[in-house]
């Protein structure tokens, strides 16, 4: 084999295992799920072409819209409550002269070392009516009813609170790393120029951490839109009371694996995929425009 042909063949030879695995386990299932989303399939060898029937049925189903609404609200809660809190904690931890920084960081980060299953079961018990720790505390402190239904009427708040516990510390680490890379001389120069803490944050710190912040926001949105284990398991503790905590992935799971309607579930998956692509594109465009604007 000549050196030239070896140069051409070798990369492909090295890529082949990956390409084979990718084709079998990613490309083929994707194509198959697209085909499936255009069919109704019940039982072995039984499928009927329905065109966009699955998609139109889905758009006409109030449960789909409820699931989308719940997922969107949870996502907004994650982005607008969780991330500012994570950034605030990171800034506190980066304050000069803070003692026990490492220990505090470990304590705040440690919930993300706990598995989602364990956390969901834990919060399922904490949010119980009457015997749950939260209601006991709120009742003792403020006289709030012991029967406050966190796992039904207020399930979205319960999910947001549980995810705060799990992910604030995790996101805080990203922000901490970004804050450590903010050039200190810029902050000092702004201080010398008379900028207060707010001005320094808005005009110096924020632009410097924007790439990381943008990445964390994107991860948070994608993760939130894929929310499944936490509500699925938390609601299981309470016996899956109703649809108040149903998310898009739970809706997909129910249709695909509880009702065996794999074509419909594939259609939900494709819609979710398109939503994720749309969100990512919009977020990237906004980030790029801001970067160009500040340049």
């Amino acid at each position: 084999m000549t050196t030239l042909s070896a140069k051409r063949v070798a990369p492909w030879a090295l890529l082949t295992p990956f390409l084979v695995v990718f084709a079998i386990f990613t490309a083929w299932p994707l194509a198959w799920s697209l085909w499936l989303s255009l069919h109704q399939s019940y039982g072995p060898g039984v499928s009927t072409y329905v065109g966009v029937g699955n998609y139109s049925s889905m758009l006409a189903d109030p449960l789909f819209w409820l699931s989308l609404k719940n997922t969107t609200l949870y996502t907004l809660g994650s982005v607008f409550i969780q991330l500012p809190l994570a950034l605030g904690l990171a800034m506190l931890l980066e304050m000069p002269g803070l003692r026990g920084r490492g220990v505090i960081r470990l304590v705040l980060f440690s919930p993300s070392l706990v598995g989602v299953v364990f956390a969901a079961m834990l919060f399922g018990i904490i949010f119980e009516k009457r015997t749950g720790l939260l209601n006991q505390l709120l009742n003792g402190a403020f006289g709030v009813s012991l029967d406050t239904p966190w796992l039904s009427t207020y399930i979205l708040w319960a999910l947001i609170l549980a995810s705060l516990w799990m992910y604030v510390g995790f996101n805080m680490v990203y922000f901490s790393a970004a804050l450590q890379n903010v050039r200190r001389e810029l902050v000092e120069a702004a201080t010398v120029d008379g900028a207060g803490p707010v001005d320094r944050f808005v005009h110096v710190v924020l632009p410097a951490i924007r790439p990381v912040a943008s990445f964390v926001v994107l991860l948070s949105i994608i993760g939130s839109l894929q929310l499944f284990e936490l509500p699925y398991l938390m609601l299981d503790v309470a016996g899956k009371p109703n649809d108040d905590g149903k998310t898009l992935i739970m809706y997909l799971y129910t249709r695909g694996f509880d009702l065996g309607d794999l074509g419909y579930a594939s259609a939900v998956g494709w819609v979710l995929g398109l939503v994720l692509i749309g969100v990512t594109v919009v977020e990237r465009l906004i980030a790029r425009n801001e970067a160009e604007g500040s340049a």
Partner: protein
Amino acid sequence: MAIGAQAEGRWAGRDSGALSFGAWLIVLVALASSAAILAAPSRKSGDVVMWASSTEHATIYRPIFERWNAQSTPELGTVDLRLMSLPSLQRRMLGSFLSQTDSSDLMEVERKVAGLAFLGPIESVGFADLTDRLKAEGLMEQINKASFSPWTSRGRIFGLPHDVHAVMLGYRADIVEAAGIDVSKIETWDDFERVMGPLIERGETGKPPRFLLNMAGNNGDHLELLILQAGGGVFDDAGRVVIDSPVNAKVLATVARWCVGPDRIAEDAPNFAASGNKLKADGYVLTSFFPDWMGAIWAKEIAPLSGKMKLMPLPAWEKGGRRTSVWGGTMLGIPRTAAKTPSDFDRRWTLAKNLYLSRDQAIGLWRMGGIVSPVRACWSDSAYDEPNAYFSGQAVGRMYINLAERIPMRSSSPYNTEALARVVKALTDLCEDAKRSAPLPQSELERLATIRLKSAAAQVNELLNRNEFLKVGAGVSP
């Protein structure tokens, strides 16, 4: 040296020479580990593999299988019981049925899982049709008729029933009897409210709160058993959606009144949870629904209530009405892929009958799990007459057997769980209506319930109409 030149040098080296020591090491490790995996002995498997998800059932089956394996002939083979979680069993079953690939030789599944097998055309059901064999061997007459209903689709039976699961009402005899209440005077749910009413404590007098019934307005199992007891349901015998029936509306209205408002009589003390067990032990709720399997669970989890509990038949919805209902259920099926030849089927069938229909198994099931067998010939056994210490010496086995033939028929529709979820949603919405405009009279609650149920029925019909095979004719009657 530039990166490109470095890479070029490496490729050139590769062309000219042998693999480096490190590369050889990686190849050797890969070959050795592959050989080790291939040489490792595979898990010893019995001739007949059975999948199950209930740990309690497995505890009962293991000694039976040990005996079977010791006495079995080569024709009948040995048995290998594989226990897995219910969701895992559901996914594996669905996966194997949809792809028509081999799964197990016998499969024990709960009602919610079994329904999924009935999604497609009748000839594509993943379980072997047992109807003709049951009839030929006279088993239809030997087994409690209603116990077949969850495993019957479009007139064909696909599973041997494991249980009856009649439901009674368990009550705190220590509190109720100390208050001088005679539960024999309770025949209907109206009687129940009237006779037990004085025991309610809503916390206004400083005493710990106490409610009459353990029930949550969002518990589908509780709601279904009440609906079935009243003669309602979510699907009729032909598989049509009957969610918005007047009977269902009446039950929903009554349950909403029980669960909401200042005059509520029911509160939730969740089953299978430490928090709920504490509430029950504290006397927060005086009565709970008791299918036969629940007694063993309470005896294990709420031992302090031993000797303080008693059972009574469920109060009926009207005088002379049904005093029981049904909650839960399991079947044993033979996957079609495991019964390709008549001899394959016969081997599995012999084992299935031995496991589910023998007297030994029935008595073991009762003694260990408190579960009454659906085999009527076993009901005469004296084991069912033994006093139960947990239930203050009552012969609870006999009490359940006396109700067994009165349990309602159930739908086997794969959409049953989802339909029930829509009914639960209707109930929670109705409870919100009741909260906003309390107190509403029963007639107004029934009117609002009907509106909510019509909406639920429309959603389930939409679901059902998507499936060509189940639009009509998904019957439940054997």
